[in-house]
């Protein structure tokens, strides 16, 4: 049997992923996360009497804190199992990726373990985040003149 025929045979027996269901769950959970974030901004700006921009930073810090804490407590992977990308795409997912790598490599030392591996998963997000920021910044400069 050649590779092409085998590939067709494998495809026949491979189950379809529930893309629509997963996307809907992610959409709903992601939406709830958005509402929570907005709620936090409102609470911070009202209680601390600060601007919305400043309150946004407080909101992000809060979500990162809980993303990391729940990862350390061993809850976050179970939550993600249910919530799919609803928790991975927001900032909580980034915090989770960094924190889980940190936990994994802490036994290998501060420098060779945590330092070298903390961005194992999230490193790509940072690199390509910066690259796309530059690309779109340059495009904006060229097209719109800044």
């Amino acid at each position, binding site marked *: 049997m050649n590779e092409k025929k085998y590939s067709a045979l494998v495809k026949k027996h491979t189950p379809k992923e529930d893309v629509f269901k997963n996307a809907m769950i992610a959409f709903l959970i992601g939406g709830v996360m958005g509402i929570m974030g907005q709620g936090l901004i409102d609470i911070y700006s009202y209680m601390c009497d600060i601007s919305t921009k400043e309150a946004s930073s407080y909101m992000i810090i809060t979500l990162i804190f809980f993303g990391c804490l729940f990862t350390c407590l061993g809850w976050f992977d179970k939550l993600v199992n249910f919530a799919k990308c609803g928790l991975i795409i927001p900032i909580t997912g980034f915090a989770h990726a960094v924190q*889980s790598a940190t936990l994994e490599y802490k036994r290998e030392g501060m420098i060779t373990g945590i330092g070298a591996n903390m961005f194992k998963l999230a490193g790509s997000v940072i690199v390509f985040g910066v690259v796309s920021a530059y690309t779109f910044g340059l495009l904006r400069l060229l097209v719109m003149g800044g």
Partner: protein
Amino acid sequence: MNFKYNNVYLNETAIVTGPYEANGPLGSYFDRSYDDLYFGTDSWEAAEAKLIEDSVDILLSKSSLIKSDIDIHISGDLLNQLVATNYAAKDIGIPLMGVYAACATSTLGLIIGANMVESGQVKNAICTVSSHNSSAEKQFRYPVEYGGPKRKTTTFTSTGGASALISSKKKGIRIESGTIGTVVDLGIKDVYNMGAVMAPAAARTLYEHLNANGRDTNYYDLILTGDLGIYGKEIFKDYLKKEYGIKLKNYEDAGCILYDRGSQPVYAGASGPACIPLVTYGYIFDKMHKKQYKKILMIGTGALHNTSMCNEKRTIPSIAHAISLEVIK
């Protein structure tokens, strides 16, 4: 390559597992199970080495032997440079032969050991294999606590250490023959569909084994593949029929038996070098001792990749080794 044995027996076995296996349907067949995944050590790698040490200790006490009675220890695991085996062997102190065939390591070890015993140069050999869910996840996939969504075809690496004592003493189960398989690659690149990667290797080894021994599948009461999982199992059956014209009746996959897929988060089933011995050495041997199965064929199936080769988008080769076991007449 096929080997026939006249005087080799699998005298005793010992199985140590983690909590997921103990909570599965075969929990009562294991000699020792731990409640957590560290087993009193401080890292996943050290925990896996402990699985090997424990299984050898239990095997020696069950068979009333001491370390100096054992001529050679043949052992393997999934970790880079076989560290679990090597670090365990440091404390075990029996001459070591480290072997690697990914998840086909258990049957490879048994074939090597059986050849040594058959030649008469080795009196007692211990064959061990281990895998640890967390150390394997760390090395091959993502950090253990990372919860990215997984595909349905993903398998769950079993946590366990399994040791077998083989000798020429007529006791336990007879090792009748063994077949060393050929590496097969049918162009699959998907690391989350290991069943599809390994099914052609299992089929080829089964075909070669049957051919070399001049028998058909009805000869066996059970043909057991290692860790193809529920989807890989179907691919294997379909491929075997189309490519070699072999229809299977008495067939099962160890990866589909070890856990309860309904209540445990194991996706397509169990995998790992320990998967097939965890199922065979306890549950299947118990059925053999009760004469429910008289002749079985164990086919260990291994995917021979590492993360670099997969990141380079290369296809994944696989291998399968088969060993035929019989109840002593």
